[in-house]
C-alpha cells in the first residue's frame, strides 16, 4: 500500500475539514496543522522549529500568519505550526497578508540580531534554512548597530557533536528529538532571554546512539558533526541514495561523495522503515574503507611464504587450480549483499559441488540452522506490526544495541500508548530501562500474549539451547507474530540466497529432490549435491582434520566465530575475497580485492525481508563485486556459474523466484538448564552498538561516544567479592581472563554480564566463548 492509499483509507474514518488559505480551498483531515495544510497547496510558510515527526513547539515564531475563524480574526498573527485547522477558517500567509509578512520580517530581524556573521566558516552555509529564509523574509540591510552576544565556540557536547551556541535559533528541535524520539534527554534549553542556550547535563554527557540526527535536523549550523566539520560545501557533493550496510534495520541513507571519497552520510527518508532517522553508526562509520590498507591488486602467496602482487588472470587461475577437484567449503560472512550471497551459494553448489556453505560468522548451533532454514523465510512480521502491537517480547535481542531503528519504533509507540515490553535479558540495558521492559528469566514463564503481540527474536537466542524452540512454541501458543532480527545487514538475504548448507536460493530445501531438480534446471547443470552440508564451525573443524582441503572466505573476521578459527585456516588452501588487509588475508593463499558498498550496486534484505537496493556511489570505480570474481573463478575451473554482473545476478534471482513447496519443519530442541555452582557464575554478553566492530574502524570521534565496558553483577555478589562500584574484577575461563570495572545492577546473584566486543572486553578472544561459566574474583 502506498502512503497515499493509506491516507485515503484513513480519510474514510477521519473527519475532513476544508479551510481557505490565501484564497484557495484545501480539504485535510481534522487535526492537520495550518502549516501542513498550506504545504498541500504548495504555499511555503517560513519555519525553523516545525518538524513533521516532532510534537509542535511554537518556539521560533517564524511561521506567523493571519487567521480568521467564523469571521472573527485573531487579534495578532498566529504560529501556523501549532494551530490545527478548523471549519470556516480563513488563513492569510505572507503572500496575501501584509501583517503576516511584516510579522515574519520582524521575527527574522530579531533572530539575526544576535546571529554571528559566520556563514563562511559555518558548515551549514549553502544549505541553511536561515540563510534562505533571511533572503526571502528578511531585510536587505541590518539596522542593528549594537554589539552581538557572543559565546565561546564551539563546545563539544559529545566527541561527535559540536555546538556553536551563537548560531542557535532556539528552535528546540534537538532537545525535542532527544526526548521524544530517542528517549535520551541529555540536552535541554537552559537560561532565559538573550542568554538562552542549549546545554548538557554536566555529569551525564550526551552519549546517545542517535545524536547525529540532531545535527541533521538543526535548521542552522549550531550543531555540527566533528567528522564533517569544514569538509565541503553542498555544491562539492554528489549525493547518492543508498542503504545502510551496518545492521538489519534497513535504513535508507544518502551518501555524499566528494572526488571519490565519502564525506558524510545522512539518514534517508523512508516512512515505512527508518522514518527520517538513523543511528550514529550508520551515519558516521564509513572510514573503515580507508582506515586499513586496501587490497590494491590480486595477490598470490609465493614459495617464500609471502604475498606477492599478481595480475587478475594469474590470480584467478591460481585460485581455480587450488580449488578444482578439491574438497572445499565456503564461508560468506554476514555482510554480503543478496547478489553476492547468491554468487557464493551458486559457486559452492556448481563449481565446488558441495553444500558446505555458511554465512554465520558468529557463534551458532544446529538448532539455529534448523530454525533459519525452516521458520525464518516464512516470517512476515514488519515495522507496522510493532506499531500495532499490544506487547513486544524481546528474546536474545537488545534493540537499541543490535537494531537501533527497531528500538525507535518501539519507543515511539511506548510514548503514545500503553505498550508492554518483555525481555529475557538477565540485566536491564539502558535500552530496556527506556522501554520500561519487564525482565523474565525464562521464556516459558511469559504468558498473556495476544495475537497482536510481536516476538522479536535476536540472533543471540540461538546460543541458548532450546531457546529458539521455546520462542516458536510461545508464538504458536499465543498466535503472536514472530520476527527474527539478526545484527548484520546481510544475514536475512544470505538465507534467502541459499548461503547456508540446508537451503538453495529462494528457500528451496536441499533435502527435497524436487527443489534440487528445480534449481539444477534453472542453472542448466545436471544435478546438485544432495549430501548434507557443514556449518561454519564444522567447516573449520573439517579443515583441521583434513576432511576438507580448501576454503573460500569473503568478509569474515575469525574472531567473531571463535578464538581458534584463524589457526584452523593455517594448513589449507584459502581463497580470500577482501576489501582491506585483515587477519584472513594474512594467512590466505590467494587474496582477491573486492568492491566496498559505495563502489558497487546491489541490495540487502532488512529483517522484514524487504529489499534495500542501492546503486554505485562512486561511478567510475574499477573494483568488482564478489559475485563477478566468483564467476571468473568458476569459468576458469570449467564449471561456469554465469553471473557476470550484479544486474545479471539480480535478474537470475528474480527469475528463479521463491519456493512454493512446503518448507522443512523445525526440529525443536528441549531446554537444558545450566546450574551455576557456588564458585562459578553464568556469563552473558552482547555486543554494544558502538564497539570494536571492523566496520567502525578509523572513526575516532564515533568511538568516543561508545559506552564504557563494565562488568555488571548484583549488589549481594559485589559485597561477597568485596568490591565497590568501579573497582576491577577479574573474570576467567579455562582459556583466559579479562579485567573490568564493576557496575552494580539489579540482577540475580549468579549472573554476570559483560559487553562482547568492546575495549578491554573482547569475550571471544579473551574467554573463548560468549556465554558460559566463569570464575570471578576481585582483581
Amino acid at each position, binding site marked *: 500500500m502506498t502512503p497515499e492509499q493509506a491516507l485515503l483509507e484513513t480519510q474514510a474514518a477521519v473527519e475532513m475539514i476544508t479551510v481557505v488559505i490565501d484564497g484557495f480551498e484545501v480539504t485535510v483531515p481534522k487535526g492537520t496543522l495550518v502549516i501542513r495544510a498550506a504545504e498541500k497547496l504548495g504555499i511555503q510558510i517560513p519555519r525553523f522549529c516545525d518538524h513533521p515527526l516532532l510534537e509542535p513547539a511554537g518556539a521560533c515564531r517564524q511561521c506567523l500568519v493571519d487567521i480568521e475563524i467564523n469571521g472573527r480574526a485573531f487579534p495578532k498573527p498566529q504560529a501556523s505550526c501549532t494551530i490545527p485547522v478548523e471549519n470556516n477558517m480563513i488563513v492569510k500567509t505572507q503572500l496575501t497578508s501584509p501583517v503576516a509578512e511584516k510579522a515574519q520580517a520582524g521575527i527574522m530581524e530579531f533572530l539575526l540580531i544576535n546571529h554571528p556573521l559566520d556563514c*563562511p*566558516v559555518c558548515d551549514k552555509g549553502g544549505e541553511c534554512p536561515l540563510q534562505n529564509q533571511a533572503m526571502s523574509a528578511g531585510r536587505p540591510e541590518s539596522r542593528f548597530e549594537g554589539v552581538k552576544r557572543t559565546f565561546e*565556540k564551539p563546545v563539544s557536547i559529545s566527541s561527535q557533536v559540536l555546538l556553536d551556541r551563537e548560531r542557535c535559533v532556539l528552535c528546540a528541535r534537538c532537545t525535542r528529538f532527544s526526548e521524544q524520539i530517542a528517549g535520551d534527554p541529555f540536552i535541554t534549553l537552559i537560561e532565559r532571554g538573550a542568554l538562552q542556550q542549549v546545554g548538557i547535563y554536566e555529569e551525564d554527557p550526551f552519549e546517545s546512539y542517535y545524536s547525529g540526527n540532531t545535527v541533521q535536523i538543526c535548521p542552522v549550523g549550531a550543531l555540527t558533526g566533528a567528522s564533517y*566539520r*569544514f*569538509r*565541503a*560545501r553542498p*555544491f*562539492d557533493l554528489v549525493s547518492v541514495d543508498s542503504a545502510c550496510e551496518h545492521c538489519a534495520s534497513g535504513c535508507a541513507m544518502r551518501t555524499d561523495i566528494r572526488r571519490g571519497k565519502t564525506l558524510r552520510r545522512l539518514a534517508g527518508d523512508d516512512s515505512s522503515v527508518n522514518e527520517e532517522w538513523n543511528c550514529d553508526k550508520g551515519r558516521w562509520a564509513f572510514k573503515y574503507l580507508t582506515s586499513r590498507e586496501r587490497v590494491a591488486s590480486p595477490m598470490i602467496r609465493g614459495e617464500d611464504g609471502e604475498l606477492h602482487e599478481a595480475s587478475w588472470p594469474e590470480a584467478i587461475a591460481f585460485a581455480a587450480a587450488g580449488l578444482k577437484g578439491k574438497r572445499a567449503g565456503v564461508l560468506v560472512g554476514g555482510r554480503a549483499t543478496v547478489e553476492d550471497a547468491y554468487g557464493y551459494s551458486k559457486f559452492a553448489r556448481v563449481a565446488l559441488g558441495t553444500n558446505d556453505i555458511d554465512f554465520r560468522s558468529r557463534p551458532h548451533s544446529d538448532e539455529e540452522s534448523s530454525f533459519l532454514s525452516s521458520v525464518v523465510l516464512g516470517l512476515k512480521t514488519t515495522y507496522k506490526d510493532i506499531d500495532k502491537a499490544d506487547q513486544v517480547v524481546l528474546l536474545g535481542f537488545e534493540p537499541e544495541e543490535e537494531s537501533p531503528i527497531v528500538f525507535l519504533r518501539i519507543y515511539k509507540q511506548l510514548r503514545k500508548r500503553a505498550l508492554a515490553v518483555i525481555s529475557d535479558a538477565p540485566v536491564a540495558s539502558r535500552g530496556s530501562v527506556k522501554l520500561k521492559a519487564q525482565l523474565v528469566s525464562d521464556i516459558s514463564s511469559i504468558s498473556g500474549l495476544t495475537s497482536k503481540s510481536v516476538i522479536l527474536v535476536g540472533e543471540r537466542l540461538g546460543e541458548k539451547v532450546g531457546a529458539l524452540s521455546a520462542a516458536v512454541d510461545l508464538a504458536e501458543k499465543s498466535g503472536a507474530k514472530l520476527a527474527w532480527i539478526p545484527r548484520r545487514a546481510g544475514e536475512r538475504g544470505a538465507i534467502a540466497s541459499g548461503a547456508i548448507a540446508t537451503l538453495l536460493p529462494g528457500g528451496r530445501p536441499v533435502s527435497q529432490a524436487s527443489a534440487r531438480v528445480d534449481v539444477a534446471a534453472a542453472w542448466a547443470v545436471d544435478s546438485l549435491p544432495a549430501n548434507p552440508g557443514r556449518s561454519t564451525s564444522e567447516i573449520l573443524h573439517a579443515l583441521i582434520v583434513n576432511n576438507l582441503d580448501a576454503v573460500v572466505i569473503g568478509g569474515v573476521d575469525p574472531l567473531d566465530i571463535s578464538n581458534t578459527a584463524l589457526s584452523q585456516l593455517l594448513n589449507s588452501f584459502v581463497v580470500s575475497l577482501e576489501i582491506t588487509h585483515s587477519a584472513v588475508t594474512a594467512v590466505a593463499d590467494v587474496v582477491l580485492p573486492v568492491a566496498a558498498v559505495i563502489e558497487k550496486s546491489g541490495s540487502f534484505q532488512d529483517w522484514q525481508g524487504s529489499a534495500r537496493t542501492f546503486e554505485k556511489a562512486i561511478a567510475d570505480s574499477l573494483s568488482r563485486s564478489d559475485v563477478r570474481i566468483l564467476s571468473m573463478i568458476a569459468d576458469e575451473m570449467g564449471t561456469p556459474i554465469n553471473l557476470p554482473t550484479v544486474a545479471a545476478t539480480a535478474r537470475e534471482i528474480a527469475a528463479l523466484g521463491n519456493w512454493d513447496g512446503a518448507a522443512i519443519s523445525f526440529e525443536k530442541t528441549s531446554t537444558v538448564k545450566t546450574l551455576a555452582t557456588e564458585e562459578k557464575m553464568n556469563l552473558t554478553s552482547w555486543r554494544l552498538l558502538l564497539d570494536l566492530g571492523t566496520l567502525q574502524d578509523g572513526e575516532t570521534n564515533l568511538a568516543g561516544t561508545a559506552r564504557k565496558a563494565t562488568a555488571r553483577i548484583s549488589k549481594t555478589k559485589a559485597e561477597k567479592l568485596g568490591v565497590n562500584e568501579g573497582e576491577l574484577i577479574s573474570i576467567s575461563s579455562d582459556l583466559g581472563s579479562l579485567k573490568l570495572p564493576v557496575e552494580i545492577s539489579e540482577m540475580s546473584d549468579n549472573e554476570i554480564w559483560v559487553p562482547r566486543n568492546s575495549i578491554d572486553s573482547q569475550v571471544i578472544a579473551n574467554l573463548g566463548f560468549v556465554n558460559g561459566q566463569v570464575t570471578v574474583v576481585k582483581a
Partner: protein
Amino acid sequence: MDNSLTPRSNDLGLTAAAKANAPIESQEAKSFAKQLQGFWVTFITMFKKVNTVEYPEVKEPTAERFHGRHQLNRYDDGLEKCIGCELCAWACPADAILVEGESNTEEERFSPGERYGKVYQINYLRCVFCGLCIEACPTRALTMTNGYELADESRAKLIFEKEDLMAPLKAGMLQPPHPMAPGKTHIDYYRGDIKGGSNG
C-alpha cells in the same frame, strides 16, 4: 511632435567609408600613382616610433587594475588570511577553483579562527580572469596581481597549488603554522588590528 524616424544626420561617415573602401577597379596607368601612395604609408611607418615592445626582453607594466594571476594574502605576522570557506570556488563561473577546508589546532595554526584552507588550487586552463572570486572572498585573502605570464608546457603545471599562490613572506612575517599574536584573538585579526610582524 514629429514621430517619424529620420536620422539626425545623413552623414554618418558611411558614404565616406564606402568611398575609401571602394575597390580599385580601374587598371589604367593613372592608378599607379594611387598604389605608390599606399606603399608610401608602409615606407613612412618604418621611421615611426613603434607601439610594440621586444617582449620578453622588455616588459611594460600593465594597467593598474589588470586582472592577472591570483595571490593568497597574509596578515602582517604571516598567518594566512584564507579561511577555506570555498566562497571563491562557489562564485567561479568557470569552476576553476578547488578548496578544501580544515580545522586549525592549537599546535598547528595556519590562520586566525577555526578554519583554514588546506588545499587550494586554481586551474589556469579554466580561469577567465573575471575576478568574481575576488569579490566573493570575505577576508580579502584572495586578490589578483598584475602577473600575466601564465604559459607552460603541460596541463598539470597550469593547475596552481596553494604554495604557488601564497603571497611571499615579507620582512617580519613568519611561515605558518604558528600561534596568533599573544593576547590577540581572531577578531583582532579580522578588524585589522595586527600591525607589524614577528609574531606580534
